[in-house]
């Protein structure tokens, strides 16, 4: 890794044209993925990402230059390129870097790169074959075991010099079932910000069974009817509704530019009073957790909405300048090649007081979304969509037959007012969230909730 003395010289060069803030971000990441399909290990992706980015701020302008040459010479050239892009300016300030070590709140017991491929294949196969052999209607299965060892160094003109090591592990099993009415898929993708000890608590076999069961259930299901109806969305990955309908619109990257339906609404009631929503990057070993964000700010627990009142946005340093607000520890980037911006970490609706059975019993005719798929949102308008991976019709307060092919669409500001029942059994699901700063691991979560009225797409 790059020494403190070299970082000092690089930042000095970067500031030579009058920037008021400079940052060096260097990275060395090992990504390792073992993939299975057709009951065989068919591909291994094994790569090293190595490079650096230099960012400068001057007022509300930001400049970034990146390089794969992390020698002092390469970094100096990169700093010069960034400085030049900023134009002419005054002589730089002096920088004294002091090393700082933030504690590691996400301990790792088994570093994946120290484990032979053979052991990883064993774990993957346990999950894979549990799905493949679950039922005769399973026609194909695929599986992936991913491990990431992400090492970052951050040095800034404010004097910070620090490093962090972020290790993640994830097992994904996907199953395809066919009962003669067209193929349907099921999946399960638990992940954790830890090493292979993740499998001490998560049994790979259960991951496979979960995926297969979903595919088999949906293969026997008819199409979801279309219309506007109440929907009960279960815990875990169901939290994607808040992530899409509301979370992205609370990111400074939208708010700072007035491109959010929630800009300028701090202190106002934007959601049903039953809704309290939190973004917490400090949950030990959770998939979306960090020690420090990609600008070197320690992770925080931020209450976004409390009893329906908007309390906080998710803010990075650069957009914070435009908003006149401090960073909330939410600056994230997929790699050095992406300009970091405000992103979610582990975002969830906090547990409420409704009972699960009451929530289901309250629905005369509607949909129970047991598992959600991904979605997307346009923060300007708040219009969102997401897919229901496993849904059931609810009739007279009873969960009835499964239905396939459903999606939910609506407007974020409407849907969070329509969350009128919140259960107590909080659980989280793991996802990769894509946005302008690339793909980053995020947790979504909630207890079982009821949305009183939403458009269900089906046929």
């Amino acid at each position, binding site marked *: 890794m790059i020494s403190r003395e070299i970082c000092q010289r690089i930042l000095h060069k970067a500031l030579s044209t009058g920037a008021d803030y400079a940052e060096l971000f260097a990275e*060395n990441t090992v*990504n390792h993925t*073992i993939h299975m399909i*057709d009951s*065989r*290990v*068919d*591909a*291994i*992706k*094994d*790569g*090293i*990402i*190595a*490079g650096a980015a230099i960012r400068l701020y001057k007022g*509300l*302008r*930001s*400049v*970034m*230059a*990146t390089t*794969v*040459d992390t020698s002092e010479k390469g970094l100096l050239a990169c700093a010069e*390129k*960034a400085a030049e892009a900023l134009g002419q300016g005054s002589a730089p300030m002096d920088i004294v870097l002091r090393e700082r070590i933030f504690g590691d709140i996400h301990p790792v017991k088994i570093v994946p790169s120290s484990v032979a*491929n*053979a052991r990883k294949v064993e774990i993957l196969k346990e999950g894979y074959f549990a799905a493949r052999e679950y039922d005769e209607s399973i026609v194909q299965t695929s599986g992936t075991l991913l491990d990431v060892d992400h090492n970052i160094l951050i040095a800034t003109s404010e004097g910070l010099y620090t490093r962090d090591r972020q290790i993640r592990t994830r097992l994904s099993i996907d199953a395809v079932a066919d009962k003669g009415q*067209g*193929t*349907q898929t099921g999946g399960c993708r638990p992940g954790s910000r830890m090493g292979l000890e993740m499998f001490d608590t998560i049994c790979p076999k259960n991951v496979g069974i979960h995926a297969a069961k979903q595919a088999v259930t949906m293969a026997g299901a008819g199409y979801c009817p*279309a*219309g*506007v109806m109440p929907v009960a969305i279960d815990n875990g990955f169901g939290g994607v509704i808040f992530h899409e309908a509301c979370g992205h619109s609370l990111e400074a990257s939208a708010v700072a*530019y*007035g*491109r959010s339906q929630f800009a300028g609404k701090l202190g106002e009631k934007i959601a049903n009073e039953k809704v309290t929503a939190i973004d917490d990057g400090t949950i030990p070993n959770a998939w979306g957790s960090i020690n420090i964000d990609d600008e070197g700010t320690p992770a925080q627990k931020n209450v976004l909405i409390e009893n329906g009142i908007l309390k906080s946005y998710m803010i990075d340093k650069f957009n914070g300048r435009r908003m006149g607000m401090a960073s909330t520890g939410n600056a994230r980037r997929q790699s050095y090649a992406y*300009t970091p911006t405000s992103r979610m970490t582990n975002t969830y609706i906090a547990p409420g007081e409704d009972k699960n059975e009451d929530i289901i019993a309250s629905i005369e005719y509607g949909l129970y979304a047991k598992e959600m798929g*991904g*979605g*997307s949102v*346009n923060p*300007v*308008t708040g*219009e*969102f*969509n*997401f*897919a229901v991976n496993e849904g059931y019709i609810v009739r007279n307060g009873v969960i009835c037959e499964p239905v*396939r*092919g459903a*999606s939910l*669409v*609506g*407007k974020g500001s409407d849907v969070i007012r329509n969350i009128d029942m919140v259960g107590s059994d909080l659980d989280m699901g793991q996802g990769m969230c894509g946005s302008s700063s690339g793909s980053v691991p995020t947790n979504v979560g909630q207890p079982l909730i009821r949305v009183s009225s939403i*458009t269900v*797409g*089906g*046929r």
Partner: protein
Amino acid sequence: MNFNAFKEAVIAQCECLGIADYELYYQAAESTSVSAFQHALNQFTGSAEGGVCLRCLVDGKMGYASTEDMDPNKAAALVERCVDNAKTLESCDPEFLGEGGQSYAELTLQNYALPSTEKLIEKVLATQEAIYAADPAVIDGSSTQGIAERSEFAIYNSRGLDLHYENTVTGLVVAAVVTNGTEKANDYQIKLGQLDSLDSEALTKKAAKTALGKLGGDVAPTGQYPVVFDPEAMSDLLQTFSSIFSSEVAQKGLSKFADQEGKVVAAPCVTIVDDPFHPENPMPINFDAEGSPTATKAVVESGVLNTLLYNLKTANKAGKKTTGNASKGGYDSPVAVRPFSMYLAGGDITEEELLRKAGNGVYINSLGGLHAGANPISGDFSLQSAGFLIENGVKTTAVKSFTVAGNFYELLKNITAVANNSHLPTAMGMTAFGAPTTLVEGLSIAGK
């Protein structure tokens, strides 16, 4: 970073270990992007990136390993990882490296110098002002962006392949946020080409006009209607389901087209072409990721599935020749199969005539959540949509926040007309998709 020095070190290590079949795939890009917010410059990014992927055959199995750290001292570690990965594989389908000495189509590449930062900034600021001037309803130019990228890649292997490709792309992204006082709407437009040739005014007017069209929309009624997709929405659908034409996906049992070559899979008016040299694609290419020559072919011709897309491995398994569609998602990805510019060919009626044919229905010009609401394995989709009602053969009220649902395999059979305006709406990279305005029967709309 020196690819050649690293390459020599990797070759020496492979030869030392007695590895006879190896290949290096190198990719690098140098890019600049500038964006403006309101009337000022907001962000500048200048990036240089590059990486190399080694693959080698060990006991008939193809291992992969990649790195961005091209320090020749680390070449041996890359080879070691590659061999270890190969030994872990269990795939039994034979794998191949491309052969040297093949002949390729002549190609004229856009290989000009990147514009200066000053020039890029000037163009972006001028475009930003053009957005505000485009319509009084425009309240924010959002992120007008100028982009310039020079990319290159090279394939070198032990079978005599030694290919190199270099291309330059520049362009503008404009976004307009409009309001009518109570509601906001936005639109993005992208146009590639040499900066001087890009018409900022026309592009910003189009963005403003499209955004304005989304204001004040009603919710569509629920039911089954004739649906007209505009070229962009239809291209998005084709892109989302394009994997069904991949032999690799078919051989894994994940496409219904597995045993359909030569059979009718679509309506007679449907012809789908894959063209590596499409004039609207700024990155034409005459060799694929395995170094095989590329070629233009009709994948579906008048409703009949002519051929799937193949690479060396899948073609061998099917007893066919590669169609030159080997691809890599990134330099570090395994070789897969992908189209270049795949488009639904146009017909001979105008969009107006097609709308008259539709009679009463829904016109869709925007689809959302394609990564989530569409399942390329089953073909099912249920997607967030926006557009207009079609009444008595003309577009009338704007509608939004509704879904369109159906199955792509069935949709191909239910296309009843294609207009004469087929084009590639957003060709940004080597893979692009296109379509004309398309009329489809039998889809479900869920609105109010």
